[in-house]
Every structure is written in C-alpha cells, then in structure tokens.
C-alpha cells in the first residue's frame, strides 16, 4: 500500500480526499477547544503565502523536501526509514566537523563538508540495513534505535568536547564564512542550499522515471519476491537504498548547518520535526518522487501558515502537525470507506 499501485488519477483523488477529510476533523478539534475553525484555516492560508510567508515556505521546503525524498527513496523500495533524525544529526555533525577543523581553503571545505555529511548519513543508515540483512532486526526498528543513540551522542559531543565556551548554549564554534553556503546567489532570493536541493531532487526524479535503479527499486517495493526472481540482488539493493536514503538525510543536515545555522547547536536540527513531516509527505505521495516534492512543499506551507496563525490567534502552531497526521490516517482509512462491494 505504501508504494501504491494506484494510477495517477485515483492517487490524486485519494490525496485530495485525505486532505479534505483531515481539514474537517481538524476543524472539529479546533471547535472543541473553543476557537473558530474558519478563521484558523484562513489565518493558516494567509500566513503561508502572504507577506514574508512565501519566502519562509520556500526556505522551509528545502529541508522538508530533502527529508521527504529520503523517506520516499526507501519507501519506494519497500524500506521504512524511521531513523532520519539520526542520519541527519550524524550528517550535520560530520559537516560541522569538516567545516570547522579541516585545514583546506574555504570553498573546498564546504564541498568536502557536504561530501562528509552524505557519507556519514549514508553509512549510519547502511549500518541499520546490515542489521536487518544479517541478523533479522527490522530496518524500521534498527534505524529508529540508532536515532536515539545519535541524539545522545551528538548532544554529548557538542556539550563537552566540541563546545564553544564563549556562548552560553550547547553548541560548536561558528563555521568560518568562507566555508558557508551563500544565502543569496547573485543577489537573487535563491540560496545555495536551494539550488543543491533542486539539483538533487531532479536527479532522484529522473532516476526513478528512467533509471534502471529506479525501476528495480519500484519493482521491489511492489513485490520483492517477483523482483528477486527477475534477477535483482535484494541484499545489495537494500544496502544501496538504505545508504542513499541516509545520505539524503545527512545532506539535509549539512545544508542546514552550512547554509542556515552555521554551527551545530544541540537540538536545533530536530526541533522542526523535518524527518517526521517528510515521512508523512512521502507516505501521502505514496512514495512517488514528484508527488513527494509537491506534498512536502504543501506541508512546508502548512507549517509556515501555522506559525502565522499562532501569532495572530494564540492557538498552538502544532495544530498543523495534527493536521498532517490526520491526513495520513485518512489516507490509510480510505480503503475502508470506499471499498468495492
């Protein structure tokens, strides 16, 4: 069901139905807590696009699309990666370490930092795949447990050995300006992180549509045994897919560190919940990369609108998180409502 054997039209119908049903259910929650659902939704919609809303939505889309694609790459091949948080942290830390301590000139440092993040995030996810393949520990569980370990480990490292004592916060030193990713390219409102994410997203989409890899992954996601009979080496494929999924998460960590936060602060990468929003966007899109990009930009807009709603009405912005979860549940419940008799 995750990888979805539906055709494009019924997939679109399913997505729109889920969103509509979630809006109604979310409206009930809002109404029960004594607020007016119509004005809440109006504020969310306005906040997402008006004023600085559009810029913020675009900025938030970069990490969210990345984490959603990380989830989608795995889902497409039948793997559920719940360890995106850990892979993002390990990737972000690797990027910060290289950008801070590797003695090479600025721009090369940024490139190497990105490469280090991709490798570190990928290897961290690959480790979980190895546990599934050799010891029968489900990837879903192993990747999640690794996340908790990464959280404790990075938290310890930035609080003690890597800490910048000059700030009162648990964080590393600031990355030198030469090794950062520019926030504007040619004075345009386009950041380097955005450009990188667009390029990566295009590669993922093209590979999915016309690459041999993409075809084999999709086949495995739909029917692993069939894929194996057709000559796909499932073990190698699982390792590769897990690595790429983790590499994507690691890249997101690096883009956030080098392009936005400029240092590794304990908790800062995970606070916005990109991993879980991304996972929900990928599930909603039934793991199709193009649809995943659309749904994750939609979720980014929803979240930005939520913050604006919180400022205007004083209701918790986490309401948009509730809406995202309701959308997924309505999607999963849809077959029950529309079953063929």
């Amino acid at each position, binding site marked *: *069901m*995750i990888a979805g054997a539906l055709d494009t039209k019924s997939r679109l119908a399913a997505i729109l139905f889920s969103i509509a049903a979630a809006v109604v259910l979310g409206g009930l*929650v809002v109404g029960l*807590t*004594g*607020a007016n659902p119509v004005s809440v939704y109006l504020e969310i919609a306005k906040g997402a696009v008006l004023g600085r809303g559009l810029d913020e939505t675009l900025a938030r889309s970069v990490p969210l699309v990345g984490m959603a694609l990380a989830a989608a790459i795995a889902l497409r091949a039948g793997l*559920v990666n*719940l360890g995106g948080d850990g892979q993002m942290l390990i990737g972000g830390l690797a990027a910060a370490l290289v950008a801070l301590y590797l003695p090479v000139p600025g721009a090369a440092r940024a490139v190497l930092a990105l490469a280090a993040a991709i490798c570190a995030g990928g290897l961290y996810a690959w480790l979980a795949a190895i*546990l599934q393949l*050799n*010891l*029968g*520990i*489900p990837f*879903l*569980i*192993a990747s*999640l*447990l*690794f996340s*908790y*370990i990464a*959280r*404790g*480990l990075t*938290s*310890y490292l930035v*609080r*003690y050995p890597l800490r910048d004592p000059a700030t009162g916060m648990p964080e590393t030193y600031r990355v030198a300006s030469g090794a950062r990713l520019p926030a504007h390219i040619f004075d345009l409102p386009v950041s380097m992180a955005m450009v990188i994410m667009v390029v990566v997203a295009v590669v993922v989409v093209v590979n999915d549509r016309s690459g041999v890899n993409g075809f084999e992954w999709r086949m495995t996601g739909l029917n692993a045994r069939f894929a194996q009979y057709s000559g796909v080496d499932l073990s190698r494929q699982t390792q590769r897919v897990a690595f790429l999924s983790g590499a994507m998460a690691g890249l997101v960590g690096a883009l956030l560190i080098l392009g936005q936060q400029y240092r590794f602060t304990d908790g800062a990468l995970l606070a916005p919940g990109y991993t*879980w929003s991304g*996972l*929900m966007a990928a*599930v909603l899109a039934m793991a199709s990369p193009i649809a995943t990009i659309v749904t994750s930009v939609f979720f980014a807009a929803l979240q930005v609108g939520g913050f604006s709603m919180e400022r205007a009405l004083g*209701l*918790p912005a*986490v*309401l948009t*998180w*509730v809406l*995202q*979860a*309701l959308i*997924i*549940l309505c*999607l*999963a*419940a849809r*077959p*029950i409502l529309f*079953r063929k008799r």
Partner: protein
Amino acid sequence: MLNMLLSQVLDLMTPVLLAAMAGALCERAGVFNIALEGKMLVGAFVAVATSVAFGSPVLAVLSAVLCTAIFASPLALGGARLGGDPIVIGIGLNLLASGLTTYLLGAIFGVTGTLVDPSVTALPRFGFAALADVPVLGAILGHNALVYLSWLLVLVFNIYLFRTPWGLRLRGIGEVPSAAAAMGANVSRYQTAIVILAGGLCGLAGAQLALGSVALFAENMTAGRGWIAVVAVMLGRAHPLGIALACLGFGLADAVGLRLQGQGLPNQITDIAPYAITLLAMIGLGLRVMKKKTKSV
C-alpha cells in the same frame, strides 16, 4: 541500597511492560502494532487531564484506559479489518498523539512543556514501613496497584494464550488466518477486539508513566518507551514471560543509568543506555539465531 535500586527498576519497567503486553497480544493476533508509543502518550495526557478536572486517581486511570482504547480504534478498524497498512496507521497515530497532546496542552491548559497541578497526585502506594528494610521483599512491596496489576497480567496472558481455547484461537489467527477462518473463527472481529484491548493496556501504561513515580505530564514524555516495548515484544518472542524478562532488563538499564547520572556521568550518555542495550540484546539474539541456522544446515 540494593532494595532501592530494585524498587526503582520495578517502577521504571512497569509502563514498558504494560505496553509490551499490548504489543504481544497484537503480535499474536497478527497485527503489527507500532503505535504503542503514541497510545502511551495519549494515556499519560488523559490521566493527567482527568486528574486536573476531577482530582481522582481512580477516575484518571479509568479514563486513560477508555480514551486510549478509543484512540486505538483507527488501527483496530483500519489495520485489522480491511487492507489498511498497520505501519502507516501506526506512524500516523504516533504523530497524531504527539501533536494532539501538545496542542491540547496549549489550547486547554495554556501550557507549553510540562503540566504540573496541585490536583494531580501520584497513584497511592501500598507501603509497609515495617518491612521496607527486608531484602528483596521490601523492594517488592510499596508500589502502586498498576505495578502489581502488570505482574498479574503477565500471568493471566500466559494462561490465556497457552492454556485456553480462546488463546489457541488467537494464536491460530495470527499464524494462519485462513486456517483459523476455515475453522469458524471470525478473524477480523478477534483482531479488532484485541487491538482495542491493547489500546486500553497502553492507557494503563501511560497512566503509570504520568502518575506512577511522578505526577505530571510533559510533552512527548514517553521518550521512546513505546518503541522499547516494541523491541521487548521481539526479544521476548511475544511470550509474556520472555517479555517480562526483557522489560526487567530495560528497567535495570534505566535505573543504573539514573544512578550513574547521580554519580556525575553526563546524562546524554546515560540516556543512550536503554536504547544501546536493547540494540545489543537484539544483536545478541540475532547472532544466536544465525548460529543455530548455520548448524542445522
């Protein structure tokens, strides 16, 4: 000293044990339940919210059980009945629980982070001051009713699963649903009932988490315990006694971690301990299974 540690272990393992029992029943019925984390969180929230409203611990536990059972119904209806993917529903429920409890915390109580209220009191403990210093016995006495209920449930489920016709039917449904259906068992009705019952158990787990040792609700206070319960089901092979043992190990890791924290070890390191130990236990089990396999070949 040893008594205090053991007593702490028994307190810490209880929410995980209750949730793992829920997971085990679902596993036996053939429903992969990864929503334990979210359901426990809902149970904890409802227990504290009810305490604030009515000030009664008994009512708090009952409403936690009831509301969590209702919260589990999407998994019961969607996952067990018709074609819904239990993993997707489980992920959805976990995230809904995290979002909804945080939202309601702000929208109803105007609080972010932690809800403490004088009307929220911890569940009463059965203390026997005279026996508190007797080794082992002193540690076993002096807990609240939910701790003892969790032990009772381990025995009850053990008998239910392996000594009663209903348990046999349940295991049959989980292992070969088509055969069970041919024997006349209503597979989806059984699964629905079990998932809802498991929801109620997670409500108990949440109530114990919020009202057992502490008396408060904090955002995402389950902090992965529901996932540890999922792993405990795997480690214990969905056998109540095996699971109890796995949970005991987890409680020990948690309690020792807390002790070491008191000795000055950074809590970031001790926080890892339960997850690292569960992972190592899974790896150990996996290696043993692999060895057996290569021997038999």
